[in-house]
């Protein structure tokens, strides 16, 4: 049967769609309004720091009309001429009510003040009902203030770990890079840091995220059907916005923790016009352990550390133009040295990103953001022994240019459209090796180049007071281009039978991806709604993991003539309800996700097989599906707040070359996943937090049979079908206690002879955390071994479980001035 979604459009059809798309844009601009309406627009900012507020709510009393500020703090709303009462609000801030008499298009920038302790009712009034009124399903915004009080591993606040407490998002387990959203793989999450793609978001094999919490303003996760302005991934978008820096005053923040320290500097370059922020972090396990390793130790010179630096410059060029330059650089470095064996290796890896963004207001209704992004991720393994030296490296580099337009047409339609182009360069595997003076023949690196581009359009349409829909379409395209060498291998001998070389920019294969997106919300009452969503996505780059966990050694690999784009279709339906003036929110969501063209390494593949070869020659292709139900209830405000999230899901995979094409559970198939997060503000200065997580154990293959090789004198294991068994469930409780030092000191004023409170220059807090408080030995992996001598009839076979972290207390001191 003909299937539009999987049909690769021919070029004629592609250009026809582009033509129609341009026509739609033309129509949008040429529309005129028949009633007298004016546009109210501007930026919403923090009164103290001048930073823009993302997602601030703008609501017009009596008209049931509203909007929210975008990621640059900009809002625009079209209203009838005359007097309106407009409420500006943002969670944790005092609301601001403005009576406005609109007689022409009006620009109004609003400063909101952070709420004081006695303004609880104002804060509650300011709470957003986005949960029930928005069309976006499965979108969660996390406030950094809240994230910082949730118990954190070794006291290091971690946005990636926090999102794994949300329903539908699961962790691969301790020591596992990446996270899994609704049955999707870790490569199916689009992780953006100020619009730049981050390919590996973890330090230390997944124990810490690369994002320094001090430099982050906002974290937004879309796990449901993503709107058409996002693309290139099947499962989720994690959109992280960096702080801009204080536009008013110089500020220094930092923290000294058990394993790492942080320092952030920010301030104005020109007050209210330009600002900067620079933030750095480094672990010091290596520095702390160094004095304890004697010079005579065989392992002198071994160690591990990671560091990251984030920096951002912002310039408000005019009332219509703003410029942002953001960058990130992070590295993990592991060094192993065995002096006795003259053996040493070095393993550095990390990301570098830079993004330059220009916001421009063509008019009060048309906002455009132009972005240029550079992204780079590298992994290397270099070392040597006894004259033999080698360097194994892989990497990915992107150059990305895009424009995103938002047209605030009227109170019924909010239109977004734009284009996106990325030039990819992949080095799946590069090796140099030598023995003495002899250089081994590792030939040229097999680089892979690709053009990825997209056009999109979406309309957030308020059909009536109850019905709101978000309909969009994204047309993506990927071209695998030269230079490229295709290796044709003889499967029996491993020898290259022939090669085919493609010249620079030669088109090797083109894929088109029509990606319709639709979501709708129907309000059942003021505080409850039903939402549905369908999204169809294409993904042109893939992550191939040779081991059964995600590691930095995993290879990013693009679509080629043999690797087709991954295709995902997700269907959602959900019921959303808020209680007690939006103080509580709750939801039930059901989803089904269909995945095609998934990749896996063939069994018994090894990293060295990528040399003088194409990685895709070692891949096998399959499909998968996932379905689940997610339950979520959250108390958003008050001294006690937190949430409970529970997910039931099933995630399966099928590959022709694995277990004769039988379905098997994905390794991150989690039937039950429960998270309970709670925080209690005991008084002005003391906050306690606790987290409980429970998850069905990871699936795994087990040795079912064994045989004895008399040729090798070894026991050979015969494994079960893929992922046929389960590890024990994962669960633990973490707790934290945060104590803020008094922000003032009391001194006796000799003039008045009265005690006065003077603000301290340095405001500090202590955070005490205990990870895994009941010392649960959660399974990390299982290994199998035997003791005794089989030939003497004395051998016993057994399995042992390795667990990583027992109970781990930590202390962190944070400061700010």
């Amino acid at each position, binding site marked *: 049967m003909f299937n539009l979604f999987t049909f690769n459009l021919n070029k004629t059809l592609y250009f026809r769609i582009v033509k129609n798309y341009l026509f739609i844009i033309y129509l949008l601009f040429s529309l005129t309004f028949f009633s007298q309406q004016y546009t109210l627009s501007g930026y919403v900012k923090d009164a103290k720091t001048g930073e823009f507020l993302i997602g601030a709510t703008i609501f017009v009393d009596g008209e049931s009309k509203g909007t929210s500020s975008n990621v640059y703090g900009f809002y625009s709303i079209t209203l009838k001429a005359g007097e309106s009462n407009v409420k500006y609000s943002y969670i944790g801030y005092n609301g601001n009510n403005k009576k406005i008499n609109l007689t022409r298009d009006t620009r109004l920038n609003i400063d909101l003040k952070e709420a004081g302790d006695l303004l609880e009712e104002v804060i509650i009034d300011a709470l957003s009902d986005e949960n029930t009124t928005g069309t976006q399903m499965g979108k969660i915004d996390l406030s950094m203030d809240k994230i910082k009080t949730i118990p954190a591993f070794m006291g290091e606040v971690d946005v990636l770990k926090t999102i794994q407490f949300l329903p539908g998002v699961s962790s691969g387990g301790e*020591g596992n890079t990446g996270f899994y959203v609704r049955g999707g793989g870790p490569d199916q999450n689009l992780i953006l840091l100020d619009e730049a793609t981050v390919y590996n978001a973890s330090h230390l*094999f997944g124990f810490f995220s690369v994002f320094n919490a001090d430099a982050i303003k906002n974290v937004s996760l879309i796990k449901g059907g993503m709107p058409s302005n996002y693309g290139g991934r099947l499962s989720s978008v994690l959109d992280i916005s960096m702080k801009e820096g204080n536009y008013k005053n110089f500020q220094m923040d930092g923290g000294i923790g058990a394993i790492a320290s942080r320092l952030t500097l920010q301030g104005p370059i020109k007050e209210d016009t330009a600002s900067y922020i620079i933030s750095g972090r480094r672990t010091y396990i290596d520095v702390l352990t160094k004095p304890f390793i004697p010079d005579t130790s065989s392992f002198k010179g071994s160690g591990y550390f990671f560091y990251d630096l984030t920096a951002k410059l912002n310039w408000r060029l005019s009332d219509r133009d703003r410029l942002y330059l953001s960058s990130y650089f992070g590295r993990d470095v*592991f060094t192993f040295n065995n002096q*006795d*064996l*003259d053996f040493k290796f070095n*393993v550095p890896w990390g990301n570098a990103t830079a993004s330059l963004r220009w916001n421009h207001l063509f008019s009060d209704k048309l906002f455009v953001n132009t972005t240029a992004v550079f992204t780079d991720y590298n992994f290397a393994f270099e070392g040597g022994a*006894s004259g033999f030296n080698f360097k194994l490296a892989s990497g990915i580099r992107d150059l990305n240019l895009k424009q995103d337009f938002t047209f605030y047409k009227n109170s019924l339609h909010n239109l977004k459209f734009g284009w996106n182009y990325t030039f990819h360069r992949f080095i799946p595997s590069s090796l140099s090796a030598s*023995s*003495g003076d*002899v250089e*081994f*023949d*590792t030939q040229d690196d097999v680089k892979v180049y690709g053009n990825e581009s997209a056009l999109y359009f979406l309309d957030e349409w308020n059909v009536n007071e109850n019905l709101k829909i978000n309909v969009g379409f994204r047309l993506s395209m990927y071209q695998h281009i030269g230079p490229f060498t295709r290796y044709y291998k003889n499967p*029996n001998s*491993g*020898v*290259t039978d022939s090669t085919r070389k493609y010249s620079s920019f030669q088109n090797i294969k083109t894929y088109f991806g029509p990606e319709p997106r639709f979501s709708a919300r129907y309000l059942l009452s003021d505080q409850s709604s039903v939402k549905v969503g369908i999204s169809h996505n294409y993904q042109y780059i893939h992550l191939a993991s040779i*081991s*059964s966990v995600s*590691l930095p050694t995993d290879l990013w690999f693009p679509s080629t003539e043999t690797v087709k784009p991954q295709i995902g279709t997700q269907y959602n339906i959900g019921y959303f309800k808020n209680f007690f003036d939006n103080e509580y929110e709750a939801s039930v969501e059901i989803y089904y996700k269909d995945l095609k063209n998934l990749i896996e390494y063939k*069994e*018994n593949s*090894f990293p*060295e097989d990528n*040399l003088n070869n194409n990685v895709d020659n070692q891949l096998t292709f399959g499909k998968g599906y996932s379905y689940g139900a997610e339950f979520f209830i959250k108390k958003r405000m008050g001294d006690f707040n937190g949430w409970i999230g529970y997910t039931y899901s099933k995630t399966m995979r099928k590959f022709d070359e*694995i277990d004769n094409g039988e379905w098997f559970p994905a390794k991150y198939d989690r039937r039950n996943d429960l998270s309970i997060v709670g925080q209690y503000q005991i008084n002005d200065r003391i906050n306690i937090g606790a987290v409980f997580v429970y998850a069905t154990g990871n699936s795994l293959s087990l040795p*079912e*049979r064994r*045989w*004895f*090789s*008399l*040729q*090798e*004198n*070894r026991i*050979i*294991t*015969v494994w*079960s079908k*893929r992922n046929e068994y389960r590890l024990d469930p994962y669960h633990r409780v973490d707790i934290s206690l945060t104590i803020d030092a008094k922000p003032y000191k009391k001194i006796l004023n000799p003039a008045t002879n009265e005690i006065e409170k003077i603000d301290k220059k340095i405001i500090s807090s202590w955070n005490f955390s205990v990870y895994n408080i009941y010392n649960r*030995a959660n399974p*990390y992996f299982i*290994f*199998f*071994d035997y003791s005794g*001598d*089989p030939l*003497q*009839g004395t*051998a*016993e*076979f*057994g399995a042992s*479980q*390795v*667990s*990583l972290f*027992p109970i781990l207390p930590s202390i962190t001191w944070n400061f700010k001035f």
Partner: protein
Amino acid sequence: MKNLNYIFIFLIISCTKTIEFNLPQTDQTMILEATVESGLPPRIVITNSQGYFDPIDSSLLNEIFIHDADVVLSDGNQEFILQEFNFNGIYVYSSLDFAAFGQYGKTYSLKVNKGNKTLTARAKIPQPLEIDSLWFEKYEAYDSLGLIGAKFTDPDTLGNCYRWFAQRINTYKYNYPYPFDNVKGTVKDNRPLAPIGSSTDDKLFNGLTFDFIFARGEDGDFEGPDDEGVEEGFFKTGDTILVKSTTTTYPVYLYVRAMENAAVSNGSIFASSGNLPYNVQGDGLGIFYGYGVSYDTLICE
């Protein structure tokens, strides 16, 4: 991947506990392990698999061998019906017909029938290649210990695969702690042993002359007197070493690589997953090795 295992062991504060799995009873699988190598009679062992966690007792060797199978070896021109021999409780199918001894360049086919089960396999004996030179590469840190250094020239034709074995044919000069407290005077290695990483193809060094080093292998899963502690993996001054260098085929190289990797990873999550790439077809599993062999001798001084 092996190195990554070491990284993790070094990094993590881990704790280990024994656990139990309740696995369903599995049927026995017929296993074929066969070798043809230049100048020697064919050696075919046919056994049954056991459940992984089944206990082992002294009757193991009586139970695992499959007897009275019909085993036919063909070199393309002639067929040989192999007979079952008992070597101290080890049952091997072979032939004493000189014509059945392994010859360079020949491709052998094997067919095994037992009851209603049939296994077939093919193996080739490639032309052997001699090593240019050998030496004892002493480690300064360890006085009398060292590895074997070798110079080798790979022919300028891609697709050559190799496997390295070495056997110490001298005797132990002293005893080791229990249970090796009476090894003095016995031959150090009973047969040529392959270290982990013993097999390679030539994609990195096609047509090159180069030096390489090899550590001392252990006898499979069985540790000898000097396989623990400072002497582990090293040869020693005074050792006389019979180096058996072999050429083999790509399927055997893939099998040996996976088998050795599995031996050191024990199911670790950092290893590649799956069963070994067997080259036997039919109602069972197994491997048919073909080796072109050359020998050399080195005295460690």
